[in-house]
């Protein structure tokens, strides 16, 4: 464990790099998945296509994607952009489905009720459909976040530095604590991001807490 105490600075800076790359990809994937998921939900004909195509993205091997993207898009493979774009693509692969499922989960009676009291289509989407889809979307986002943070380590194979460096460097130099430190650091930030998302969900969706069962006493039920 000497290696760890001597290299705290390195671990710290790699963790920050890693966190930055992951968070950008998660946020971009989320933002892009909202319109894509909405389109898939709203237009039945497109639905099968969008879900299948985005789902298939997930089957592209990550290393292959990291080597093909630079050729197609014309940026260096070693650039952070390369990794962030690849991670965003994988995030979309998970999130589009979650957004569509989330919008599907909204009770049609509530949607009709919103229309009946005078919500226009756009306003209803932001004030009713999207918030009520929130719990399902959040569940998808949490999976996306953890998977993105773990997947990001592959960047080191094309020369993008992050916590993955501790794996390759540790393996080459046979420093077991270095590899372990990498694993622990990835797990810790994945856990922290997950906790942060859960906390955000509780703050933004207080109504979903303890969701289903109505709390009613006999006295209340009779009034």
């Amino acid at each position, binding site marked *: 464990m000497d290696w760890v105490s001597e290299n705290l600075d390195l671990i710290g800076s790699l963790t920050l790099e890693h966190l930055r790359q992951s968070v950008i990809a998660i946020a971009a994937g989320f933002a892009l998945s909202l319109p894509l998921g909405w389109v898939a939900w709203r237009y039945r004909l497109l639905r099968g296509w969008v879900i299948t195509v985005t789902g298939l993205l997930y089957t592209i091997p990550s290393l292959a994607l990291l080597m093909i993207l630079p050729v197609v898009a014309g940026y260096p493979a070693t650039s952070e952009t390369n990794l962030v774009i690849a991670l965003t693509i994988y995030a979309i692969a998970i999130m589009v489905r979650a957004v569509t499922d989330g919008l599907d989960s909204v*009770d049609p*009676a*509530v949607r*009709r*009720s*919103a*229309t*009946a*009291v*005078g*919500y*226009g289509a756009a*306003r209803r989407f932001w004030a*009713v459909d999207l*918030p*009520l889809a929130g719990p399902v979307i959040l569940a998808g986002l949490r999976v996306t976040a953890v998977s993105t943070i773990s997947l990001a380590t592959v960047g080191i194979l094309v020369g993008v530095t992050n916590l993955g460096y501790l794996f390759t460097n540790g393996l080459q130099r046979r420093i077991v604590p270095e590899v372990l430190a990498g694993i622990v650091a990835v797990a810790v930030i994945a856990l922290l991001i997950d906790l942060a998302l859960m906390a955000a969900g509780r703050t933004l*969706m*207080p*109504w*979903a807490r303890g*969701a*289903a*069962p*109505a*709390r*009613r006493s006999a006295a*209340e*039920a*009779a*009034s």
Partner: protein
Amino acid sequence: MIEFRNVTKRFPDGTVAVDSFDLVIPSRRTTVFVGSSGCGKTTLLRMINRMVEPTSGTVEIDGEDVAAKQGVALRRSIGYVMQNGGLMPHFTVAENIATVPRLNGRTRRAARARALELMDVVGLDTAMADRYPSQLSGGQQQRVGVARGLAADPNILLMDEPFGAVDPIVRAELQRELIRLQRDLDKTVVFVTHDVDEAFLLGDQVAILAEGARRLQVGSPSEITENPADDFVAAFIGADRGKRALRVKQTPRGRVLVDAEGRTQGVLVEGEG
């Protein structure tokens, strides 16, 4: 006044939910559509606020065709109460009631003040203002639904089986409250139910409907009870049974009215009531 003129609604799948329907709904009275499930009551109601567009014919409010009005604005100007309240599960009680004032651009503070005021009107403890609908009983949710329908002070209130999902005791209480509210507020209420007793209790005008919103009889509860259009209506309103089939019984102290179960329902007095 709301007027249906030769209104037909055929859904894309071919179902004719409403077939050549005509009716005048007077202002400041309660009109009840009563009929079995699937006879087109909800479709009629939704054609008033343009949630459903007629295939042919027109619906007019005070002489103006609703088709000429902007749908969203029209719906904000008409109260709508539905079964199970139709509340937004992610809005608190106060936010639910304040929905329409907020949509109409009232400030959050003004809308909340209005919501608290309406909680009083419909008999809800304002301590519940910040609860979510899932934390209320069915009866309380219905009251919130009624309060929301009244929040923008609409002239017209549409109610689609609003008390259908609550138990009989709570339903009776909500019915009494609605009668009280209507006395104070003087709205044009269009109320849908499949329960004849509820229709006769609440309606100034009752329209008994069959499949395709075919009018079997339209009139006041008294007119219908005294003179059912045909045997079907007589059977439907239960004129021959239960508490509407009364016979006179002579007692030492005068004549009383006895129902089909043999229970005395009242005393027969002479002269105009």
